[in-house]
Structures are given as C-alpha cells and as structure tokens.
C-alpha cells in the first residue's frame, strides 16, 4: 500500500469512526431517553403539518397523561386502524381521565373526521428536518445491508490487535499466525508476557462485543417501535351544496261558493236529485277526493270527481224520497295523493245546497 493512499484510507477510517461515535452517542442517549422518560421518535410520512413539520422530518415526542394536554399542542395518537396520526389539538373535552381530542393538520382546511379518545398522548417536543428520510432509508433493505457492513467494520476495529510499543513482531492489525503463538525459548520472557497481555485484551474486547451485540438483539426484539412512523395526513374537503328537496303540499279544493261553481242536475229516475261543483284544479296533478255531506242522513247515490282539462267536477246525487226535505246540506271535500292515501289536505267546505221541499222538486244551490 502506497503511503498517500494508505493515509487517505486512514483518514477515512478515522472520520468514519469519529462521526459514528458522535451519532452513536446521540442514538444511545435517545434509546436511554425513550426507556427512562417515555421519549418516542416519530418519522413523519406525510406533510399535513407543514410548514411546521414536513414530510420526512423526525420528531421527538414525550408521552403525557390526557390531563396535561393543552389546546395547540401537537400530539401523536393512534388511530383506530393501527396507524398513528400527528396533528395539532384544536379543541378538547375531558371525560374522567380521558380526553377527547379534535385534531387538525396545520396545512389542512378541515378538522379530522373523527375525534380521538385518549388516556395519554405523545406531545411533540422538537423536530429535526429530513432525518426521518435517513431513518426510513436505513430501515429499508439497502440501509440494513450498509448497516451490516458498517457493523462488520466496527467489529473489525474492536477485535484488531493494537501495536505494542517496543514490540517489533507483527504489523498492526496482522493476525497472529500459528507459528507466532508458539513462543520460542530464545524470546525474552518480557516479550512473551506482553503477547499474553495482548491476547487477554483481545479476548476481553471480543467478549465485551459479544455482550454488546446480545444486548442489541434484546433491545431490538423488545423495542420494535423505537422509531414510530406517523401520518400527518393531508385532508381536503369539498362541499356540495344546492340540493333542495321540498315535499308536496296537497292542495285543498277551493272553498266557498265563489270558487266552486254549483249547478243543479235534472232529476233522474226514482226522484234521484243532484248537484255538481266545478273548480279549476290548475296544474296540481291528479288528486283523489274524499267527499262527505252533513247532515249524514242525506242518502248519497253517487259521489264522483272527474278531473279533465284543468277542471275538476264533483257530481253528487242523492235519493230524494229517503233524504231530509228542505234541508241545507254542507259538502266537505278533502283531497289526497293517489299514491299515498294518508297524504291528505285539510278538509274544506266546498259549498252548500238545499234539498227540495218535495222529493220531486230539485235542490237549490246555497
């Protein structure tokens, strides 16, 4: 290896180690913080909290009880569907030890469709731009592969022999060969003991690393969710207005003799007398009519309504010999919708007529 290249590799190695150590300490502190103080890192998968927090940001949150939550806090809460949403509290009500939160993303025009009932929530303390992308990428297959390589490199540094001052044998990092392990009697005892001390250090380093890795495995198994993805979901609302539905008002027939025209019919066989009432029904559509007369002692033989050409005509015939003579009769009519007989108008008095004094005499209107 040439000196210049070797120097460059050395610097790269030193730089990697130093940067790694700084990040490593930060990660260890964060992991400890998560365990001791309920801190939880959150990776923002979407940007509805922008411009405060954008997609790909990493936030540090702190778990607090519902009673400690305040309007305006940015909180992360689990949704019913197993994901997590991080939005700002726009209003809240307390119910016992729970809080019911109405949340809205800063970039959203609408409050989240459903309120969240929580006993505790993760309040966002601070956020770091774009670090979430790094964490997300490192959690992917390529990132895992590179992490594995990086871990292997660290392990190689950890278990490598360090050069001993005063020891001429063996270059730095050169593994012990089988021959070297056999200490020839000609080598001074001082050097042999240095070798033994070196081996011991290497054994200790390897043992320590094994413990560290085992702890890492346990931490990994126990803390699957140390970095939690969170949705700061965009929402967009579109209102549709303008639909007006109005129910039909069943129009009653016109009331009063001025509106309904009364006409006297000529007598039929057996002294059957009758009157008709006609009125303009306009464009109200086809209606059914229920007719009643008062007094009820009038014996009706026909009561039919016919609507034609915008005019409705009610024909009333009665058996004159069996009905009261010279009596004023009130005609009451109620209209209804043919398809919905229960939908009726208010009953109105269509008009009155007076039966003849004799069964053979015709009735008179009014």
């Amino acid at each position, binding site marked *: 290896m040439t000196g210049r290249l070797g120097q460059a590799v050395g610097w790269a190695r030193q730089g990697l180690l130093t940067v*790694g150590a700084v990040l490593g300490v930060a990660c260890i502190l964060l992991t400890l913080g998560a365990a001791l103080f309920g801190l939880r890192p959150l990776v923002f998968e979407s940007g509805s909290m922008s411009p405060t927090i954008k997609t790909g940001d990493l936030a540090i949150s702190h778990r607090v009880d519902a009673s400690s939550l305040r309007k305006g806090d940015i909180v992360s809460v689990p949704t019913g569907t197993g994901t997590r949403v991080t939005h700002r509290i726009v209003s809240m009500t307390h119910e016992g030890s729970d809080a019911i939160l109405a949340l809205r993303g800063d970039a959203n025009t609408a409050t989240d*469709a459903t309120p969240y009932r929580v006993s505790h929530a993760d309040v966002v303390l601070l956020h770091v731009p774009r670090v*979430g992308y790094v964490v997300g990428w490192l959690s992917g297959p390529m990132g895992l592969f590179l*992490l594995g390589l990086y871990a292997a490199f660290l392990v190689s540094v*950890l278990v490598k022999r360090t050069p001993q001052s005063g020891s001429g044998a063996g270059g730095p990092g050169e593994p012990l060969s089988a021959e070297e392990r056999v200490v020839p009697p000609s080598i001074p005892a001082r050097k042999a003991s240095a070798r033994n001390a070196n081996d011991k250090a290497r054994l200790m380093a390897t043992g320590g690393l094994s413990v560290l890795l085992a702890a890492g495995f346990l931490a990994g198994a126990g803390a699957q969710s140390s970095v939690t993805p969170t949705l700061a979901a965009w929402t967009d609302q*579109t209102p549709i207005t303008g*639909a007006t539905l*109005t129910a039909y008002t069943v129009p009653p027939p016109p009331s009063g003799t001025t509106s309904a025209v009364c006409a006297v019919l000529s007598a039929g066989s057996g002294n059957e007398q009758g009157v008709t009432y006609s009125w303009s029904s306009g464009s109200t559509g086809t209606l059914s009519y229920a007719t009643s007369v008062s007094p009820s002692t009038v014996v009706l033989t026909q009561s039919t309504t016919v609507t034609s050409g915008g005019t409705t005509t009610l024909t009333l015939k009665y058996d004159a010999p069996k009905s009261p003579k010279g009596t004023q009769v009130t005609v009451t009519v109620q209209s209804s919708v043919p*398809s919905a007989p229960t939908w009726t108008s208010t009953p109105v008095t269509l008009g009155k007529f007076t039966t003849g004094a004799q069964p053979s005499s015709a009735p008179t209107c009014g």
Partner: protein
Amino acid sequence: MTSNLASVGRVLANARTRAALSLGVVMAVGATGTFAYWTDSVPVTGTTFTAGTIDLQVNGADSVSGYTSLNINNMVPGNTVAGTLTIKNNGTAPMKYSATSTSAPAVLSGALTVTVTGASTVTGASPSATCGGTALPGAGSTLGGATAAPLISTGRQLNPGASETICIQVGMPANAASSLQGASSAVTFTFTGTSDLS
C-alpha cells in the same frame, strides 16, 4: 486535572472506544426492525413517505355550490330523485375519500332515505329517478341533519389523476307522515379526502 482531561481525550481518541460508541447507531436503527430482518422472524414493514399533496375535486371543482340534480319541488311518498357526482384526485399523492351529509331544516330530510351506488348515470327521471347497481360499501341510508351522517363511510381510494362517478339516490318512503307536507330541506354533502390510506 489536566492529566485527567488528557487521559479522557486519549480514551476518546482510541479507535476502539469510538467504534464501540458507533455501535449505538446500529443498535438504535436496528431496533426498528434490523434484527428482526436478520432473523427473519418479523417482516420489515418499512416506512412509506407520502410526498406531494392531494386535491379532492367533485365535478371538476373544489366546491360545488349549485348542485341541483336532486332538487324536487313536489315530493310525495314513493318519489325518488337521483344525481351523479364525479370524484377526482387532482393531487400528486394517493388518497381515500369518504362523504357525509347534513341538512337544514332536518324535518323532511330526516324522513328521507338515501343510497349511494357506483352507477355512472341516473336511471329514469324525477320523480322516479334511481341509481342502478348495488350500494357502495359503507353507504349511508339516512341523511344527516345538524349532525352529519355518513354518506360513504368506507374510504374509497383514488390514485393521483384517477376519478370515479358515484350516484346518489334520495327517496321518500311510502309510509312518510302526512305532516311532512310542504317541508323543505337543503342538503349538503361533504366529501373529505385524506392521504391516510389505512
């Protein structure tokens, strides 16, 4: 004191110390699933970033103020009205949309029935217009009053640029009370899109 600082400096400068500290990164990131990935006992779900925005448009607009397809003046029991709406994701990220209905006053609307299908056209004409097909999953059956009622409660996914047409049918049951005569309700539908696809 100085020698203490110096020895601390020497320890920190030591490659092994730094290497050991560096393992913290592996541990912390690894905790999200690295080790599970290596042992293949738990699938790595990964983190999906949703960049971009969503823009829910109905009939090509961000708000529709003159939707008159459902208008009816003389509604009697048995009548049905129907109208279609085209929902589009005009944004750059996938979204799911749902819809609710409100109305005021709610006397009439409270007695009406509603259904939503995927039909792209209305069958027949008012006052007996209907929507073909079966009701969409999570379709509501009643209209909301002051409090919103779900119209489409099961989110429907639309990818960027995609659109679909739905058909809303409102009817008055045959047994609607006669006291509803002359009542009127203005109905508002609110469509909400979200980038939360869960």
